């Protein structure tokens, strides 16, 4: 079944907005909005890691917490607090960010990243990763690069980028592939796939996501610069 988008092109992202330094009491913070999905990330620490057996004497640990707020959307996914799903997303977020961040200066400590979704319309883990990487940079941690993330996939038979909820729930079937990328090197740090699609469709969707990530990168960099220009 062929799917056509009406409001935007197949390779077009939803309108984005980013702001850095949104939470005053956090060491670093950022907001990332894409379409109707809004993610806030707050960074605390480095602080002492408890329980002690989880301490790493070589370097600090990155710990991400993902949470959809109770009022953030509809559907059976929105359940605030810890769940199998939020734990998984916290873990993949850590793994997506770990290759860029250097915490060797802070052994035995933990850096906490709290990602809160105020409003959800699909692509939440990607929005969360975008916000978290900006928040870590805002906190002044040494990083190789920012991390950009966007979902791509196949709706019906059509490869698209940045699916919204109506597309994810498309009755003709949809495959959603969240991608996180280190834009300077093109390394992929997150890729999850659940569904059936052809090799060609996957390649096409990945290409769309890579182009999309570059666009997100510009938005992120501009938001970071804007905060520090103000000061």
């Amino acid at each position, binding site marked *: 079944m062929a799917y056509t988008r009406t409001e935007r092109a197949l390779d077009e992202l939803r309108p984005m907005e980013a702001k850095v330094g949104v939470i005053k009491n956090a060491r670093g913070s950022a907001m990332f909005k894409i379409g109707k999905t809004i993610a806030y990330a707050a960074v605390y620490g480095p602080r002492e890691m408890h329980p002690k057996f989880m301490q790493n004497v070589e370097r600090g640990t990155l710990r991400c917490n993902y949470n959809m707020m109770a009022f953030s959307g509809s559907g059976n996914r929105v359940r605030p607090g810890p769940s199998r799903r939020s734990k998984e997303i916290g873990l993949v977020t850590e793994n997506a960010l770990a290759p*860029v961040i250097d915490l060797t200066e802070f052994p035995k400590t933990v850096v906490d990243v709290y990602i809160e979704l105020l409003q959800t319309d699909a692509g939440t883990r990607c929005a969360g990763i975008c916000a978290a990487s900006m928040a870590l940079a805002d906190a*002044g941690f040494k990083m190789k*690069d920012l991390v950009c993330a966007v979902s791509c996939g196949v709706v019906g038979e059509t490869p698209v980028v940045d699916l919204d909820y109506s597309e994810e729930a498309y009755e003709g079937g949809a495959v959603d592939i969240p991608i996180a990328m280190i834009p300077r090197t093109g390394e992929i740090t997150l890729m999850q796939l659940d569904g059936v699609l052809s090799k060609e469709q996957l390649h096409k969707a990945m290409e769309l996501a890579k182009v999309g990530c570059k666009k997100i990168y510009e938005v992120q960099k501009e938001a970071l610069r804007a905060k520090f220009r103000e000061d």
Partner: protein
Amino acid sequence: MGNLLVEEKSIVVPGDVLADGMDYLPAGGAFRENDKVISAQVGVVELNGRLVKVMPLAGTYVPKRDDVVIGRVTDVSYSNWFVDVGYAVDAVMSLKDGTTDFIERGAELSEYYGIGDFVVARISNVTKSKMIDLSMKGPGLRKLLGGKVITICPLKVPRVIGKQGTMVSMIKDYTGCHIIVGQNGRIWISGNSPEDERLATEAIGLIERKAHISGLTEVVKEFLDSKRPVKPAAVAENTQ
């Protein structure tokens, strides 16, 4: 041939390519990847000959040996004091480094420094796994009595001190306050009156906000002149 790809003094973010070619070398806050020099953190680009450096605009305090810091005692054990110096883990000050006084066997250590007391101390050692040792032996290292402690971003400390301490001595002159600046961003201010202390706090706040501009001393001098045309006499310090 190497090219500098950003202007000096411009704001960069992690991942920005600062220069390409082997003519430029990465210094603090930057690293090399293949033939490119890349920024590792949010900061301002500084150029020193062939060295490209990123002066950080945000960050936390990382304890270094021989830093003089202001710490708060958080716990007292049989032979140690534990002191919060603004890092993730507390620093340890052992009995023998705590004071030059003779301490009798079985003496109550909290009579020297109790929980909640502020001290000026020197970091005598930092291990690779960031265990921090403190010492109180040295000129000017002591327990702080009276006054107040404010916290600023540790990266702005050099601006608060100024070249050869010019900035902080100017604030001392104008307000008559005693000021001790710890490398960890804690500043102790003790003056004749709360107004004096408030003025000193405001001046330090101004430095923190405008830390990136040049000619900061003039700006602060103007601010202090407008608030306090007549300099008060310095006061004798409340010592133990």
